[in-house]
C-alpha cells in the first residue's frame, strides 16, 4: 500500500543519445505507451513505454516482480492495462487481441502450460489447429532436433523437455514476433544452451522480432541487440546494446584528500565504491568528456573499462544513492526544459 507509486507521472522526454530510456525512431514490432497496471491500490506498472524495433532481439530484464510478466500478459491480452495501450505489429493488444495472439509465438512463465494429460504428439496436433501458418515439416524437424518423446505424457516430461515442447509450439507457426517469458527458468546449463541454439537457428532462418524476459541477462548476452530494464514497474533503461556498451564505463582513479566529485560526474553516477584515496565509479555518459572532467578535478584515472552485461544490469538495477542523483538530475533537466 505504502509503496504505491504515484501515477501518472511525467512522460520521459527526449530521444537524445544521453538518456537511459530511449525512444527508437525505427519501425517498432512492439510498442507501449503510458502503460500502467494497478492491482488494488498498488501500481505494478506505471508509464511504461516499451519499444522493440522490428527484427531486434530485445532483452526484458528486471528482478522478479518488477513487472515483466505483467507487461507481457498485457501484450497477449491475458490482462488489461489500467492506463495506456500496447501495440504489437501495429495492432492493438486489447482491441485486436486475437489477431495479435495469432502472430505472436508465446512461451509463458508457467512450466505446466498446455495439458498435462495429453501426449506430446496430441498436444502438438491440437495446438497446430489454432495456427493457419503452422509449418508441419518444421515442427517435425524441431521435434527431432529436440529429441522429443512424442508418445510421452506432458506431465511426465522433465522441465527441460517440457520447455522444448513449449518452444516448438511457439516457433513452428513461424510468427513474426516471439515473446518468451523466462524461457530458461529452471533449466540446467545444458538445456539452456539447447534453447539458445534453437533460437539462433530460428532467427537465422526466419526473420523474427524477439522479446525475451529474464532476470539472468547474461544467458542471452550473445543474442541480444536491445535491452529494456525494468524495476518497480518503471523502465530504468531502454537502449541498443551498442549504446549501453559505449556509454557505460567504470572509472577507477586515485584521488587527493578532500577531493569532491564534480557535478557533471555526480549527474552521470550510477554506482560507486570508494576507499580512502581511491574511487571506482560507474558512470553513464561520453567517455572522453567524463575522463576530462575527472582529470580536471584532480583525480588520477588509472583505468576506464567497459562493463559486461551482468555488471551493467547491476549498475542499472541496484538501488544506490548515486543512482538517485542521476534520476533526480534527469528530472531536474525535465523541469527546466
Amino acid at each position, binding site marked *: 500500500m505504502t509503496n504505491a507509486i504515484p501515477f501518472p507521472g511525467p512522460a520521459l522526454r527526449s530521444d537524445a543519445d544521453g538518456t537511459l530510456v530511449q525512444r527508437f525512431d525505427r519501425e517498432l514490432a512492439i510498442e507501449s505507451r503510458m502503460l500502467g497496471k494497478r492491482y488494488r491500490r498498488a501500481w505494478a506498472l506505471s508509464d511504461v513505454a516499451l519499444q522493440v524495433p522490428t527484427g531486434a532481439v530485445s532483452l526484458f530484464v528486471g528482478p522478479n516482480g518488477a513487472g515483466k510478466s505483467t507487461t507481457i500478459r498485457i501484450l*497477449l491480452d491475458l490482462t488489461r492495462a489500467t492506463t495506456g495501450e500496447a501495440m504489437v505489429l501495429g495492432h492493438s493488444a486489447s482491441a485486436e487481441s486475437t489477431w495479435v*495472439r*495469432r502472430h505472436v509465438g508465446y512461451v509463458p512463465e508457467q512450466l505446466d502450460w498446455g495439458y498435462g494429460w495429453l501426449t506430446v504428439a496430441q498436444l502438438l496436433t491440437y495446438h497446430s489447429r489454432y495456427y493457419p501458418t503452422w509449418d508441419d515439416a518444421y515442427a517435425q524437424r524441431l521435434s527431432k532436433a529436440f529429441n522429443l518423446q512424442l508418445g510421452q505424457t506432458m506431465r511426465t516430461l522433465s522441465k527441460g523437455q517440457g520447455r522444448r515442447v513449449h518452444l516448438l509450439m511457439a516457433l513452428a507457426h513461424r510468427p513474426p514476433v516471439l515473446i518468451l517469458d523466462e524461457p530458461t527458468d529452471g533449466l540446467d546449463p545444458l538445456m539452456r544452451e539447447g534453447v539458445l541454439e534453437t533460437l539462433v537457428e530460428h532467427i537465422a532462418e526466419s526473420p523474427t522480432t524477439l522479446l525475451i524476459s529474464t532476470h539472468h541477462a547474461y544467458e542471452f548476452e550473445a543474442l541480444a541487440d536491445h535491452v529494456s530494464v525494468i524495476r518497480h514497474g518503471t523502465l530504468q533503461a531502454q537502449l541498443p546494446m551498442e549504446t549501453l556498451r559505449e556509454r557505460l564505463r567504470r572509472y577507477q582513479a586515485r584521488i587527493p584528500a578532500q577531493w569532491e566529485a564534480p557535478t557533471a560526474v555526480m549527474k552521470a553516477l550510477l554506482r560507486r565504491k570508494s576507499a580512502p584515496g581511491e574511487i571506482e565509479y560507474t558512470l553513464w555518459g561520453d567517455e572522453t568528456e567524463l575522463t576530462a572532467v575527472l582529470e580536471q578535478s584532480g583525480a588520477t584515472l588509472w583505468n576506464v573499462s567497459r562493463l559486461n552485461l551482468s555488471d551493467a544490469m547491476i549498475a542499472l538495477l541496484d538501488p544506490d544513492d548515486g543512482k538517485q542523483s542521476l534520476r533526480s538530475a534527469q528530472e531536474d533537466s525535465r523541469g527546466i526544459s
Partner: protein
Amino acid sequence: MSATTVFLPSARGLQWIVFLRLRRFVAWAAFLFAAFDTLLIIAASRAGATTQAVRQARGVVRMEYDPQQSFLLVGIGILMCMVLWHDDEPRRRAYFWTLPVNRFWHAAMKCAAGWIIVTGLAVGFVLNMMVMGSLLAALQHYPVVPHASLQAWHYLVPLVAGTVAYLFTTSIMLASDRPVAWLIGIPLTYLASRWTTQNFGYPRLYSMLESLWSGSHGMCALITGGLTQIGNYPATAPFSAWAGSVVVWSALALLAVAGAAQWRQRLT
C-alpha cells in the same frame, strides 16, 4: 487490419480434445452404471426365488427407470464440468486463454462439446435403465409394467437436468476465480437464507426462496419432472409445468454461460 475478423477454433479439434479430457470420466461413469446393473441383477435373481410378498416389498426400490434418478445426472453434469475446465482456469491465465481465437466462441464451443458428452451419458443412462427394467422383469417373471404414471416425456428429464446443471457449473467455472468456493457457497447460502427467513419471521421471503426449489417451476420440478412419491403413492405433475421450468431454467443457464463467456473476453 479489420478488427472485426472473428477467429474461430476448429469444432472438431475441440470435440476431440474434450473427449480426450473426459474419456476417463466417461469410463468411470460407465463402470458405475455397470456395477449398479450387476447389483440389481444379483438382487433380482435372488428375489426371483422368494415369495410374492418380498417382491412387492422390493417394489419400493423401483428397478425400472424413474425420473428421480436424474439427480445422478445433476451430479455428473457438475463434476464433468469441473473436470473439463480444471486445466483452463482463467485465474491462472492457462493455456486455453492464450490461444489465438475469439474467447467468447472458444468458451461457447468448448461448452457445447462438453454438453454433447454430458447428454450422451444421460442418454446412455436412460437407455440402460430401460433395458434393465425389461431385463429385471423377465428375470422375475414379471410382465414389463412400467411405472404407472410414467409418460414418454419423462425420459427427457435426466437429459435436461444434466444439461442445466452442466451449464450453470460452466458459467461459474468461467466467471469465477474461485469456482469451487462458489459451487459450495451458493447451495449453502441458499439453505442458510431459507432457514433464517423461516425462523426469524420473513414468511414472504421464505416462500419465495422455497418456491425456487419446490415451486411448480422450481429446480426440483425441473430435475424430477415433478414426479415424487408420497408414501407409496406417486405424485405426478403435468407436462406443461415441467416444460415451463425447463424454459425458465435453461434460459437462465444459457444466459449465465453467455454472460460468463462474454465477461472473460477480456481478462482483467
